[in-house]
């Protein structure tokens, strides 16, 4: 668990950390769209430099970002090899074991890999600098306009924050039940298939029982404090956009525009 950094919040204090989550989410969306515009290597170069700047400004190390990418590495390598072998357009670059590798295929695949890397970098910028709860507040606000077409913005945000809040609890609960069952002779590593199924059952059933119990307790506790979904509520933390936030969105929009221009020129 300690090594897993993808999507983890880094409690630092930087100008990026202090920005409005709505601005950060909007900027991230714009950047993600920009990635998918085929602006060539110059475009990706520009994106890389800009995003690297943001990462440094947020006080994050490249080592941290690199660690976030690690879980995706195997997938990327797999993707790279598959694409190189399967795509058959353009000039033949070289041939190994009777399989021709085409120049176009390699280029195309490299584009995909670079896009994926940039995507991880961008989303890391957001998740590492924004507390999960601030993120849900931001999502709720951004979904507000869609309430007119019956998107339950507040409920979605509440759902996300409750889910996030219960992750550590459930991990702890799982470990507790595992230990309790191990004390009853359950062997989670060895044993026949039937024994393994029993072992998993002995873990899942109590976990579900306690999760439902927790859900009920939480629902009661919320109702006892007068919570009613759909009712207008005030907030303890009021988000406020500053000039820097608008600037961030502006810059992201500019980046997107630049990509479109580059793509047109190419």
């Amino acid at each position, binding site marked *: 668990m*300690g090594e897993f950094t993808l999507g983890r919040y880094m409690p630092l204090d930087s100008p990026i950390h202090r920005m409005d989550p709505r601005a950060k989410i909007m900027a991230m969306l714009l950047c993600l769209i920009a990635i998918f515009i085929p602006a060539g290597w110059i475009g990706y170069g520009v994106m890389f430099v800009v995003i690297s700047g943001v990462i440094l400004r947020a006080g994050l190390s490249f080592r941290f970002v690199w660690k976030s990418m690690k879980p995706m590495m195997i997938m990327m390598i797999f993707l790279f090899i598959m694409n190189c072998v399967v795509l058959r357009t353009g000039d033949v670059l070289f041939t190994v074991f009777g399989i021709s590798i085409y120049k176009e295929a390699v280029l195309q695949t490299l584009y995909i890999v670079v896009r994926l890397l940039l995507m991880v970098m961008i989303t890391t910028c957001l998740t590492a600098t924004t507390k999960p709860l601030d993120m849900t507040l931001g999502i709720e606000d951004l979904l507000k306009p869609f309430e007119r077409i019956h998107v339950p913005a507040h409920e979605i945000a509440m759902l996300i924050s409750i889910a996030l809040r219960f992750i550590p609890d459930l991990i702890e*609960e799982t470990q*507790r*039940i595992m*230990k*309790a*069952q*191990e*004390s*009853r*002779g*359950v*062997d989670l590593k060895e044993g026949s298939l039937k024994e393994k199924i*029993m072992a998993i*059952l*002995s873990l*899942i*059933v*109590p976990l579900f*029982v*306690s999760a439902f119990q927790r859900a009920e307790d939480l629902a009661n506790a919320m109702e006892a404090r007068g919570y009613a979904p759909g009712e207008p509520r005030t907030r303890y933390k009021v988000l406020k956009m500053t000039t820097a936030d608008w600037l961030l969105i502006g810059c992201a929009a500019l980046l997107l525009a630049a990509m479109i221009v580059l793509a047109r020129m190419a």
Partner: protein
Amino acid sequence: MSITFENVSYIYSEGTPFRYEALSEINLEIEEGKMTAVIGETGSGKSTLVQHLNALLLPTKGTVHILGRTIEAGTQPKGLKSLRGDAGLVFQFPEYQLFEETVIKDIAFGPKNFGISEEEALKRARNAMKLVGLDEQYEERSPLELSGGQKRRVAIAGILAMDPKVLVLDEPTAGLDPMSTVRMMELFRKLNKEHGKTVLIVTHDMEQVFRYCDNVIVVEHGRIRTQSSVSEFFRDSSVCRGMNILPPAMIRMRDLLNENGFDIADTVMDTEALVNAVERQVKRHG
């Protein structure tokens, strides 16, 4: 034979920023055949300590000797599974480990895991049910629809059915009503006295320590503060008051009487002896 801990340390998440030393250099001797209480504040390391007894946790440093087995830090000990059968560990709020369709099946789950035949396991399960005071009508009920106290008894029966030589209980009476608490403690005493089981019980209740246990171990900040017999421990109440432990009511009563002019010896350790001592002194003055 006894259960011994030699210089045992346990460190959570060693080598990360979350490193936490839960036990440091513990030396301990737990007498077999006795009922021993483990007391200490929340977070003092009691639970970490008792999880070493069935090798759920292996020491980071040091050695644990239990029931003829040696568990040494840094080695992968053999025969762990049989140790889990011999040293039955009942966790806090054990009712959360129930999962089978019927009470009897859930109780028989443990023994079956240790290679005991279905028939024998069911026999043991029935015995265990009798021990914890659940009658036959509960056998085919779903454990999930019982009351909290009944669930707790089913869970404890599930460990008893494994017929462990050492029974380790982590706060077994937490959240039970007073009546069930007394019944539970009587059961543990019976298992200790009549069935010869070594009982180790983690508790916050000094009345339980005083009334039921032979020995007491005080854990503080991952170290053993004191280890003694219960009568020794409560004899001079200033000792346990010094550890921020409120002595049991009977000892407090004795202290109050002494503060107000009585002269009762510190060897007076039960209510009857206290009443007699008071009676004698009143008569002498009367």
